């Protein structure tokens, strides 16, 4: 459990710190992330994160696209939870244009968004298992995510880059036979969740590897602007779905799992319990899914009024915020700033990692569950 050990040194011997370069091509950096570690033996002394290898200038690109086209860019930010990204963006424009969204569209969005959260957390589960050295989790994680993506394909026509949410509603109505399909899917997911839990949650080696590793207390976590499961693992009750409810979340019954120690194990547990909660939310939504239109009254050419709008939503990784500056009457945003949760979460990395073992560095990085598409934008 103890993370700090005394380093015994022979005063006469000469030692030098070892600087190793992890990434951008490294199996455990989750994409093109690079960190320069200074090691004292097996122990990490300092960490220098380097990002930007996936910088595509998304913010700049939005200034050249119509409001309808920007959804496609948001699909490619956090490419694990595409629906959630699109959702925050369309909510921003809806907020600016004061569009009313039909209830059915809201429920469709919640179902898809929560499913995407489950898919994202399953992917986290898999890669996290792999970061720690276990092989089976990644297969279970991908197996379940694959099932969810097959459903997404039926709904939106694409497995990842959906472009399905529209300002004012969604693109098409749900396909025939969606409700039986999603009920069957939820049964599968529950079984898969049990499998997943059996392999890692109570495994002694897993607890040994994660409990007490990379711990940050609530105050410091918040100081870095960390959000999402990482913040909730530190015990801060901040879930935008509860704290600043959007869509129909205020009507739905679910709880926010909270950790207490803020270490890697708590982050893992928070995510796993969020899968349970998301399943609960989806079940409620299916029960309450009303008939009716799926598209509010919006003109086909979007011209938000003048002003600046900041809208945020709870992504699987945390608080995704979109800051839209509109000069009014134009079909393009003047400026669109994206506040990615992974970007802020990654800032806390170096203070989590100092003093940990080299082997823990991948465990800590994995527990943040970053997506580089969103960090670099």
């Amino acid at each position, binding site marked *: *459990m103890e993370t700090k*050990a005394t380093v015994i040194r022979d005063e006469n011997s000469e030692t030098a710190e*070892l*600087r*190793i370069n992890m990434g951008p091509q*490294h*199996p*455990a950096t989750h994409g093109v992330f690079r960190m320069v570690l200074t*090691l004292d033996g*097996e122990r990490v002394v300092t960490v220098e994160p380097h990002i930007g290898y996936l910088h595509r200038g998304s913010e700049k690109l939005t200034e050249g696209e119509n409001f309808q086209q920007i959804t496609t860019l948001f699909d490619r930010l956090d490419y694990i939870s595409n629906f959630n990204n699109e959702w925050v963006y369309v909510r921003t424009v809806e907020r600016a244009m004061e569009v009313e969204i039909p209830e059915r569209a809201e429920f469709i969005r919640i179902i898809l968004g929560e499913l995407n959260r489950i898919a994202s957390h399953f992917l986290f589960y898999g890669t996290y*298992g*792999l*970061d*720690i*050295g*276990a*092989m*089976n*989790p990644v*297969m*279970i994680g991908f*197996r379940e995510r694959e099932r969810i993506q097959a459903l997404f394909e039926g709904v939106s026509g694409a497995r990842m880059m959906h472009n399905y949410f529209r300002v004012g509603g969604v693109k098409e109505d749900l396909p025939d036979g969606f409700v039986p399909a999603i009920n069957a899917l939820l049964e599968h997911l529950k079984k898969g969740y049990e499998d997943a839990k059996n*392999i*890692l*949650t*109570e*495994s*002694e*080696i*897993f*607890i*040994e*590897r994660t*409990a007490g590793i990379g711990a940050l207390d609530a105050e410091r976590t918040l100081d870095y602007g960390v959000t999402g499961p990482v913040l909730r693992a530190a015990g801060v009750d901040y879930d935008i779905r509860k704290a600043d409810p959007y869509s129909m979340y205020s009507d739905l019954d679910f709880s926010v799992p909270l*950790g*207490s*120690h803020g270490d890697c*194990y*708590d982050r893992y*547990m928070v995510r796993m319990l969020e899968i349970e909660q998301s399943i609960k939310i989806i079940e409620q939504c299916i029960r309450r899914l009303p008939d009716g239109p799926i598209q509010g009254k919006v003109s086909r050419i979007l011209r938000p009024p003048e002003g600046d709008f900041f809208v945020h939503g709870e992504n699987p990784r945390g608080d995704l915020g979109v800051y839209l500056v509109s000069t009014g009457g134009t079909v393009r945003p003047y400026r669109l700033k994206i506040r990615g949760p992974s970007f802020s979460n990654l800032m806390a990395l170096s203070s989590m990692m100092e003093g940990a*073992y*080299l*082997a*823990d*560095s*991948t465990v800590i990085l994995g527990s943040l569950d970053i997506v580089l598409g969103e960090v670099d934008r």
Partner: protein
Amino acid sequence: MNISDYISIFAIVFVMFNGILGSVLVVIYGERKVLARLQQRIGPSRTGPWGILQTLADAVKLVLKEDIRPQNSDRIIFYLAPLIIFTPIFMLWVVLPFGSGLVLGDIDLGLFYVSALLGLSVVGMVAAGWSSNSKYAMLGSARSAAQLISYELPLILSILSVGLFAQLFTDNPFNLSSIVNAQAGLPFIFVMPLAFVLFLIGGLAETARIPFDIPHADEEIVGGAFVEYSGIRWGAFQLSEYTGLITMAFLASILFLGGWSGPFSDKFVWLQPFYISSKTAFIILLAFWIRAPLPRLRIDQLMAFAWKAIIPISFANFILVSLVVFIGDRISLPIFQIQLILGLLNLISMIALAYLLTSRRKRRLAVYRERWGEK
């Protein structure tokens, strides 16, 4: 020795060598297939029927690949390191018996020879890590040096306890063939299960397999000591890894599972290699199974596990076996009774250890329960 002797030795060595190479191919194929099944996959299925030629295709690819040496590496040691690892593992097979009399060199100090050669591969690892001029390789070799040396002790202590116990049956207790003969009545696994478990743990660690694959740790140091190697040299490392696994399983089946002995093995000599290889295969399958769901330990936890748990237990086990053998020999108990006493003692100590382990687990789980409630 005349020329025909040399030719026959050469022929035997040639057959042995290729036999091992072939079995490595089979084991790698088997690992991929078994792991795939444990993960609800199919595994290799395209090359040949059921994909049986997949490892062969991989081997051919490795041979044809460009052989790269990093610029500032130490040339001689870099090229020598694969050989240093490769050779001792193959030299081990000289003394390993496939059946009664079916052994190349049936030397008296077989166990001694085995434990000496097992320790050699660490030299190759360090050489490879040092010469490649890569920090990842260096870390990997440092890790493997620490790990291999730590786990050599329990391994050798459990081997020694087998030799000690074999004393009761034979005058030649360090000879592998006579150890197998000693198990004709009752395989040693029933007499000293504790030593068997220790041997398995030590063997997993020696061959650097999950949960002890810290020297390789693909997610941290990307392959460890041989990260800079490519082509056939990398293949040589991989080959010796898997030969190591086969050797460990083979040794376990010789020392604990009764080797070639089995039903009718005396009457039909051709059954003997079959028995020993199926026992070996069983142990290898066990290693595959363990590999599938378990995470990897951290280096400090691994060392703590070795020095705080495994090594004291090995010593205790060794002392226990020697006491029982010594006293039993002195008061000239029948062998069956000695076996019974030792087996019972072993069982009791295993149960005690199991409780120790679970109480440790309770402590560990207390953290979990306190945080996340009764699950």
